[in-house]
């Protein structure tokens, strides 16, 4: 029942490579050519931090400490996200390197957290989430961060705001 091609690993692998390549072109390469994926929005410009600014350094702290494993950064046009602010657009992530959308919302979404709390609140919350956020919070206490790191991180969190024009939440 086996024909000749079936016995040739080379033919097989080339075939498999081509088939996977089609999927790669469809889902990885084509997005390069979609305007919405490669055009920055006004909100994205707000997140285009100058190198070595407090916000840029704070973003590194955010990644280093793995904040993204519990906090998503994407607001969807669904009921479960109705109170989270303006809906995220692909262009909002234009300058994010890397994107921090992630896959878990163990803690609340942080896409626009800068609109919600003051710097003082963020500092106190990082030091003792259970005292500030509520006894049931399972967020770790970030008392081990240096003052500099904590200042930078809070600067980053406060910078997470939508551009004024799109605050009505009707985008998309």
């Amino acid at each position: 029942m086996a024909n000749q091609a079936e016995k040739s690993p080379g033919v097989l692998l080339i075939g498999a490579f081509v088939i996977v390549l089609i999927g790669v072109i469809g889902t990885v390469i084509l997005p390069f050519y979609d305007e919405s994926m490669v055009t920055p929005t006004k909100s994205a410009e707000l997140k285009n931090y100058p190198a070595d600014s407090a916000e840029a350094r704070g973003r590194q702290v955010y990644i280093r400490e793995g904040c993204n494993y519990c906090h998503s950064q994407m607001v969807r046009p669904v009921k479960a996200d109705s109170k989270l602010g303006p809906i995220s657009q692909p262009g909002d992530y234009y300058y994010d390197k890397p994107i921090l959308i992630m896959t878990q919302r163990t803690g609340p979404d942080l896409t626009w957290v800068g609109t919600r709390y003051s710097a003082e609140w963020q500092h106190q919350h990082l030091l003792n989430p259970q005292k500030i956020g509520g006894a049931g919070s399972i967020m770790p206490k970030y008392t081990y961060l240096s003052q500099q790191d904590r200042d930078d991180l809070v600067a980053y969190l406060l910078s997470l705001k939508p551009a004024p024009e799109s605050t009505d939440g009707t985008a998309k």
Partner: protein
Amino acid sequence: MAQSAAAVPAGYPKASKAVKFFFYSSIFWLLLSMVMGLVVALKSVNPDFLTGSRFLQQYLSYGRLRPVHVNTAAIGWMSTAFFGMVYYGVPALCKTRIRSEGLALFTAWYWNLNYAGGAISILMGYQTGVEYGEMPILFDIGVVINVVLIFINLFLTVKNREEKVLYVSLWYWLGSVMFLAIVYLIGNTPAEWLPSGGVQEAFYYFYMHNIIGLWLTVVGVGTIYYLLPKLTQRPIYSHKLSLIGFWTIAAFYTWNGPHHLINGAIPVWLMKAGIIPSLLLLIPVWAVLANVIGTMKGVWYRVSQSVPLKFLMTGALFYGLACIQGPFQALMGPHAILHFTYWTVGHAHMPLFGGFSLVLFAAVYYVLPRLVYRHIYSTALMNWHFWCSVIGFIIFGFAMWTAGIIQGFQWMDGAQLGAAFVEVMESLHIFLISRAIGGSLMFLGQIIFAWNVYRTVTAGQQIAADDPMFVSR
């Protein structure tokens, strides 16, 4: 078609040092991953767990341990063990030796040292922020070098095979190692090299899905097809069906990346490009399951006689269930409720632990006696390993799925922020405790596994080199 039990060249079986190295080291990573999983589960119950000193607080914080747990499971344990499996299985099916045992042993060392370096850098705070791709680029390069070397070694072995027929496991195995190289290169492209965040979405979610879909699934299904005829002493039910499965996996899995971003910040056409192939996935999954069920027809009773077969069947079952759950979650409605919740955690553990880790346990129990010329030390311990793993996972899974459904509906009722959000967290406490209990059972099972393997190697009943079990390897 089964591999014929024809005469094998003299000198077989040859206990491969590389295969042993891959298997033993993978069990070390398995235990480490379980410890870390348990620690993050306990930190979810009590955030002050293991924060006694500044050192612990910093280096064992949840945000650093969780990615190391995931990487150690997927790269440290599963990938390492599957490399052991293919290094054993490819020469066995080709009725020849591995092209270069020296190169195989080199990759075994380099692969393990490379991963150890990657894991330590994440704990040190050098993670990249890309899920599953947290290791710094130095270690990504190491992964790619290893995968390419392993691929060349396997390909040349197949090229110079003694057996004419290319059994279907060889298709899956060769394909999977090639796919791993492609997927890993795409997924670990540094963000700085990509023009926009939108394009990164395409790259990183392709990777996140396909490191499972095109690597662990394909190599795992190949392993199922290898072990099934061996453990049942019957040929595969349908050769054609297994080939249909191969091509449809390659064709449909590849497209699934965008289904992680449904309802999200991507164009609608891209969502559709992810959702439709997610549903089509039911074809390859059922091709595998139909083949398994067809092969087992009339010999199901053997499950009660062979613990490795019990592992294999349960693994295939959980793989099937995961791939029914997956397309369901990829529909826009369920996705809007379940995404971002604990449901995802339960789903992620189903194919990786319930599915292909169980397949790997069957593989280790089958291959180990053929490597060390000793019978498995204790069947009773194998059974304990089985039941602790399966019951532990079921507790774990249902705790997470239930918690996820509650979370999803609570968020829809408006508990999305602040005090309302924390209130939902409190109501989930019991599920997080249940997860830790299920996880502890899973961990206990793996301790039993490691002990049984250790005792097999050191004190298992010896097998003569001319034993019939070595003839077909």
